């Protein structure tokens, strides 16, 4: 695949951005799952 890349394509930067975005998405999804759990618990009155 690398043979087809334009000469100015920064593969290292590409990988770094992919990795960072995956991390952010994982953190956001995990935080949302916890938040939804807490909202449910609060709504049914278990955290009152």
């Amino acid at each position, binding site marked *: *695949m690398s043979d*087809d*890349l*334009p000469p*100015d*394509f*920064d593969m290292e*930067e*590409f990988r770094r*951005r*992919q990795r*960072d*975005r995956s991390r*952010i998405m994982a953190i956001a999804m995990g935080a949302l799952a916890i*938040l939804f759990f*807490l*909202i449910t*618990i*609060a*709504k049914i009155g278990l*955290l*009152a």
Partner: protein
Amino acid sequence: MTERPPLTGDAAAGSDGYATMTTASPSASLAMPADWRDFLALTKPRVMSLAIFTALCGMLVAPVAIHPVLGFTAILAIALGAGACGALNQWLEVDVDGAMRRTASRPLPAGRMEPQAALHFGVGLGVFSVILLGMATNWVAAAVLAVSILFYIVVYTIWLKPRTPQNIVIGGAAGAFPPVIGWAAATGEAALGWPVSLPWLLFALIFLWTPPHFWALSLFVRTDYQRAGIPMLPVVAGETATRRQIFLYTIPMALSAVAPWAFGHTGALYGVTASVLTAIFLLLATQVGFRRSVEGDAMKPEKRLFAFSILYLFILFAAVVADAWILT
């Protein structure tokens, strides 16, 4: 923060922040993802902080206590809604931002992100924020949030901003909604009755504070607006008229600042704080309103008024909460 390179190569429109790098072979293509920090920059975090703070204050002065988890979720949803406004505003104004020195380094005009990615991000964030607020608290608060997002995008950004120097006078309403949303999240109602309720007086304060705040800014970034073709008051009506308008709009703002005290919604702590700070605001606005800049003017009084106006609003809202929590 390190400088992120723009998307280079033969970049065609992609989705989700990816700029497709086409090569000689049509079957082979690779996309450079936009950096996550650029998505964060799209949300205008500094502008968002004012919305978060005023919403929190609206929630804290409400007569009904909200569960901390639900309160946190409401503030998160309001922040996401404000972020959506920032992203959609930047998507709509990419050409304008590119023409202004102050905004030229934003992700879209700097070429670090595809416009389609900003659109998807903004719409997704906006829809999610309204659903999250509705499910966590109530649909009255969610409806007011939806109205404020649509007002900011459709009425202010698309309709008023490119057409009239009154853009921020009417458009300022969009930024004034957060205390009402915070209040509605806690109480389940928008408090539309008479006598004028506290959240709507706080709405009026932000609404009337916006013109002197933005016109002070527009006086010292006038050339930027001129270059971008935005009909801000100094560009259309000139500097003297803008200065007079700053002074004139400060008078109703001053009245709205002391109104929560006059209507009996707050005690002396807020009353004294609002009176003192509003007197300083009036003094600075008078100074700006009746001076004339000279060639090479550093515009210090205008910058001072702009900086003070931000502090003013933060302290006044903090005083409303302190008054409600400490003295009652």
